[in-house]
């Protein structure tokens, strides 16, 4: 369908078109205040479009057989593997350190609840976990440096901070500061997936902002809400409330001590500068 066009003939107008579209996407997304990472993604769509339209008009590929076909296949498999693995490595990574800390906490809670487990076993587990964590952190830092060309220092918790956190978690000592403990519980059960405090957390409308919840609800009310999501509803969240978005299983997941701490932490949030939906009692 393309006749005997040369390669340059095939690509020249597509290249011009892709550059124009890519540039238009770059500038338009800038005008609409898209973050740089999205602007780069839009330009990459234009690049993908260029390759697709070139592929459509390429002349028929010469046939391969025997050793050449096998070699071409092997190269093709390696290329696919490299592209897919590379994409998986390049996309933002979740830092397992956070979750490992949580698991350590669960193990510690189990240790306290079941004294028959030997401390040596748990100590060994903690040591192994720490060693693996440190190794992973190093790898992540190197990976980040490779990808961005910048040092990871100053981004997220430092290895020292994480080590401190780990030590605190592994100590098994009963938490002395209920608010700090409650904040930990908030993170442990990933409340940030649906709520926002201090500008951090869910960007979608799933659950209310909680910055000033301490001025609007008591500790007891908050405790009841966590264990029984139908107890109260945040103003303006009728749809989410009726859909039952707040998980019902916290009675099974969150212990009484954790619930006390979480409610105490939430009740301490009294930032009147942030609009926080009012609770409406349902029971």
């Amino acid at each position, binding site marked *: 369908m393309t006749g005997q066009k040369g390669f340059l003939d095939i690509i020249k107008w597509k290249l011009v078109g892709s550059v124009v579209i890519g540039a238009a996407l770059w500038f338009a997304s800038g005008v609409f205040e898209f973050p740089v990472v999205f602007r780069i993604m839009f330009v990459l769509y234009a690049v993908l479009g260029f390759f697709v339209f070139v592929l459509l008009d390429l002349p028929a590929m010469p046939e391969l057989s025997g050793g050449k076909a096998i070699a071409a296949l092997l190269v093709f498999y390696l290329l696919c593997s490299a592209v897919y693995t590379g994409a998986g490595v390049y996309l933002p990574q979740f830092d397992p350190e956070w*979750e490992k800390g949580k698991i350590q906490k669960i193990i510690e809670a189990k240790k306290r609840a079941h004294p028959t487990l030997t401390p040596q076993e748990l100590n060994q587990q903690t040591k192994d976990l720490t060693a693996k964590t440190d190794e992973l952190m190093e790898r992540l830092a190197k990976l980040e440096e490779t990808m961005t060309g910048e040092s990871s220092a100053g981004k997220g918790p430092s290895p020292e901070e994480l080590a401190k956190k780990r030590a605190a978690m592994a100590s098994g000592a009963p938490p002395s500061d209920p608010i700090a403990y409650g904040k930990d519980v908030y*993170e442990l059960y990933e409340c940030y*997936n649906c709520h926002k405090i201090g500008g951090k957390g869910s960007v*979608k409308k799933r659950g209310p902002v909680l910055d000033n919840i301490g001025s609007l609800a008591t500790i007891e009310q908050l405790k009841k809400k966590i264990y029984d999501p139908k107890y109260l509803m945040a103003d303006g969240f009728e749809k989410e409330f009726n859909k039952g978005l707040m998980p019902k299983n916290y009675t099974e997941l969150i212990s009484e001590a954790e619930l006390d701490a979480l409610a105490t932490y939430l009740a301490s949030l009294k930032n009147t500068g942030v609009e926080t939906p009012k609770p409406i009692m349902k029971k």
Partner: protein
Amino acid sequence: MKRALLTALALILGFLGVALSVGQGFAQVPEAAPYSIPGIENRAVVWVAAQMHILFAAFILGAPIFVVISEWIGMRKRDPRYDRLAKEVTKVTTILYSMTALTGGLFILVLVGLYPTLTSFMVNHFFPIFAIAYPLLFIGETLVLYFYWYSWDTLTGEKKARHVAIGVLLNIIGLTTLAAINAPTSFMNTPPHPIETATLWESIHNYSWMPLNLHRTIGNITFGGFITGLIAAYMYMSSKTPEERAYYDWMGFVGNLIGVGASLLLPLAGYILAAEFFEFDASIGPYMMADQLSMYFEMQGAMVGLMFLASNLYIWQSMKRISGIESLKILGIPSVTVVKLGFAIILLGNAIWMTPHGFSATQATATDALELPSDWGFLALMPAKNTAAGLIVFVTIVNYIIYNRAIRRGTIQWGKIDFMSQFVLIFLAFSAIWTMGLMGAVRSLVRKYFHVYILFPDYTPEAYTPTLAHTSVLVTAMTLAFFAVVSFAIWLSLMVGKGKAKAS
């Protein structure tokens, strides 16, 4: 056949032994320390064993569905190509069946060795499934599959309908086996509540059982179709005569049609499965789409987008070998222009499909600098995603309609397709397997730090969500391993002795 039956019997007896002994053994030694393999995490060992088993199982369960349809079409149309396709795919299936049994056995052994308490719990909870239903179905599947294969050249002519009936029976047993083993799998994701009073049926018929049955059945057909395309591509590349090349060109087209046709339903089936997870526990939704697994879905979006681009590229290359395509017009516009416009729409659909709400792998660190501007947040919501998926599916269907109109006017020159199309078929098979591995990991990881969600916590050091990088490396390695075995099976079953058979 005897060897295969003996292997199956040995595996089943071994499994029964494990089923009967594990519960008692661990009742006596409750704190038995699991084994660990130096240099590799226990989770990765089970992951690899399970994923390899699932890949082989998906093919041997998915392929017979369209094999029997192909055989039936061949019988009705009296077109020997359909029967040949069905027979060649079944030949590869019989070899891969042994691999399914072997990897299944390996999976059981590593589970017992590395996760004894969990295995004991699952076997005890689903004892009638593991000890009675599954072994019986497995034996039935083995007998019927080999009977189906070995009676191919005997049940011909007027007896052909009987052979098709055996194929139908094979599929009934296959789908029942799939549903049976999906019960404990889905139970681990969405167990009934409260478990203490749940009956066996309630454990089987849990929230995600039927959606998983649906998703896996469609996924297996898609997978089988793309593997058929792979078989055709290998055979096309090794063909020596124009007749062989024409046949394998046709087979590749049919394989791609099956793969693409079934994959059109996959987004819906996946959506239903995810919706059931969400219904079961609303916290799973953000965990998948906004938190730890969000970048897995970004990767999945890229893979699905690439696969639709590739399958439409294959249709384009198929159109190029139809004489007179240049003169075909759709609503007064040259068909070639319409198809190219379709590619622009697919690219747009992919762009919307792939645009995430943000480039952070957890909401704990989500900031405005990494999120869509609030006015454009709709791009990341389900209505936009559904529209994008609808656009891509619509263009794919339109391309097939154009193809059909073209072949009514012109003649297909089978065997004259652009050689690059064979790499497109291989790419589709590779990408389908890779995506299966990735999404299989997602289905498993939504259990978070539980073996059985909420009921059975995972206290092992590997209970955390692995990074996408780690998963990508593992999935790529498994895909390559699977390809190596399948390539060997194709070579062994269809290429070895081909020359001799022709000469004789």
